[in-house]
């Protein structure tokens, strides 16, 4: 227990309750016959970092994918319930998924760079959204994004090489760079640091901290320390249920739920 608390003290102070950016009500997800989420009700405050924790297979990724409707692409997945972004129902047939996804960006659990050059990987999003009006602007965006993701130093001399030829951790950072290049309002990150070494992890955590100024961030992580360090709100998932949600400080120091307590104290990370 001491470890986490030590970390908490180093982490940013939890700020006063913020306006809600996204909210979900009774979100239920089925994959075919199998139920993966049993009704999740959760508010995600604006310009804060929300961490989702919980054992593997408990539905964190599934929940995350609901937030920007990436589950639409899985044929067998059926989503029920309500999810609001700035008060608009994202599952409303009128809503535009493309705009939604441009506003709610995502970094996937398994790095999936496009089989294109590193430059094209990052410039892809800005290009389709028309965010750059000249080659310079685009270069600017690509460079900043790569720099923020902590990849610039390693790849600046090989931007033309394919993104698939990078190491695992480099690919993951490339995907982060790709996601922030379109400056979404909300960024969903599914274990962004899983394949990263401590230094790179620090870079990404700094990035998250910095992004928090302007963006809303939801992050799935398996590292309690990381959750403690970067997040202000923590949600604990368990077997498709939301076991507990609360300010990070409280969650790690004094959890209400037995399962959370078990999970945190049984930690090894």
């Amino acid at each position, binding site marked *: 227990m001491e470890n986490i608390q030590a970390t908490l003290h180093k982490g940013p102070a939890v700020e006063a309750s913020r306006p809600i950016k996204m909210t979900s009500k009774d979100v239920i997800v089925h994959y075919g016959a199998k139920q993966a989420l049993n009704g999740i*009700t959760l508010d995600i405050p604006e310009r804060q970092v929300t961490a989702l924790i919980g054992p593997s297979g408990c539905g964190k990724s599934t929940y995350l994918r609901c937030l920007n409707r990436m589950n639409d692409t899985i044929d067998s997945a059926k989503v029920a319930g309500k999810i609001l972004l700035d008060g608009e129902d994202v599952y409303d047939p009128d809503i535009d998924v493309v705009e939604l996804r441009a*506003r709610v960006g995502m970094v996937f659990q398994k790095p999936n760079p496009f089989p294109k050059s590193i430059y094209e990987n990052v410039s892809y999003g800005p290009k389709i959204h028309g965010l750059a009006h000249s080659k310079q602007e685009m270069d600017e965006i690509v460079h900043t994004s790569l720099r923020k993701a902590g990849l610039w130093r390693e790849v600046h001399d090989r931007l033309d090489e394919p993104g698939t030829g990078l190491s695992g951790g480099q690919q993951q950072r490339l995907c982060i760079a790709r996601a922030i290049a379109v400056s979404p309002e909300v960024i969903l990150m599914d274990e962004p640091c899983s394949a990263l070494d401590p230094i790179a992890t620090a870079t990404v955590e700094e990035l998250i901290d910095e992004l928090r100024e302007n963006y809303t961030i939801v992050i799935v992580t398996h590292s309690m320390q990381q959750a403690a360090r970067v997040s202000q709100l923590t949600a604990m998932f368990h077997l498709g249920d939301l076991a507990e949600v609360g300010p990070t400080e409280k969650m790690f120091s004094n959890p209400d739920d037995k399962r959370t307590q078990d999970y945190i104290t049984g930690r090894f990370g």
Partner: protein
Amino acid sequence: MSDATANGIADTAAGRKPRRDIGIKKRYAAERRFKAYGIIAIAIGLGFLVMLMWSIFSKGYTAFWQTEIQVPITFSEQVIGTAEQANDSQTKLLMANYPQLARDGLIQLLGISADDKKAVSAANGLISSGTRVTLRDIVMNDLSVIGTTENVWLYASSELDSALKGQYDLNVPENRRPISDLQLEYIDKLEQQGAIEQRFNWGLFTSGASSRAETAGVGVAIIGSLYMMLIVLVLALPIGVAASIYLEEFAPKNKFTDLIEVNINNLAAVPSIVFGLLGLAVFINWFGLPRSAALVGGLVLTLMTLPTIIIATRAALRAVPPSIRAAALGLGASKNQTVFHHVLPLAMPGILTGTIIGLAQALGETAPLLLIGMVAFVADYPSTPLDPSTALPVQIYMWANEAERAFVERTSGAIIILLGFLAIMNVSAILLRRRFERRW
């Protein structure tokens, strides 16, 4: 919590900043256009398919019915000899003038005098001259019919058949159509007697080639095509898949494999008739295989189909993600095991597509068969792939060039049969393909 939510939403709504312009309208328009192109493309393809099908079926379905006339036949001993004579020597029986029996039966039915030459010849024109075989078979099967009279369904002549099916313009002057007014009168008479009937044309499926439309069928051609397709399937699929596996998975990337690759692509562009030249030079003149044989046809079509199958298979193999190979190799599977256990099953849908297209092409091909003697008149069933036979497209091609009107519907009928063949092949491949298809 719900209070907080409500407040939160209100807050954001109040302080909502203007949305970023990401050209959403234009992009959606592009999206809709793109999707529409897809639908239009499919509609064009299917539209043409429907047009082709309609033109084939509307012309061809009548070929499956054939007019027959029920004629009382007296198996006269004067004409075919007695049963005792038949037991001694079959020559008389075989050579007897069976058409006369049919003619006598018919004039009796129509009640015309045997002396009225013009009427007799008009009546004779109503029945097929192929009756010889029909009647002979009846007698040969059962000698006891000799001397008796029986009602026998005989094929009507193709002119009568076509006239009944409305394929001749009967309004033109009599001398400009193959069926005379007298004959039309007879037909009316027969119809009133109920002696004329449209019956299902089994002969179309079972008979060999014939110069008479009414007795012509695609039996030999079906057998020939069947033999050839089996040969193509048995040879081209394994060889094609094996070659693709070698090139895609094992071959070192060097000049030799480049040579093979260019070669294969090039063979795809070789006109099919050139494969006929090849078959003639290599299989017939060199290996001494017989002309007109389904075996040679099958071999030639195999060579012709190989490039298609190889190209499709290679593309499919290439599309299998490398991580699957790495996973299997990392477990200690050998390269062969990796390929045969994992890569090949994943590439199967593509391989099957290539095979279907290749086989479809082989099934419809005439030109190479021209040079190896399969575009031929073959009346007897082949018992082995070494015997002379024809193929469905050949029969279609030959019938398409016949002058007689009755062959027009038969041409379309044969095309329908060929399409049926194709449909069977497609359906089996689809079933297989569905088993293998999955995304990852």
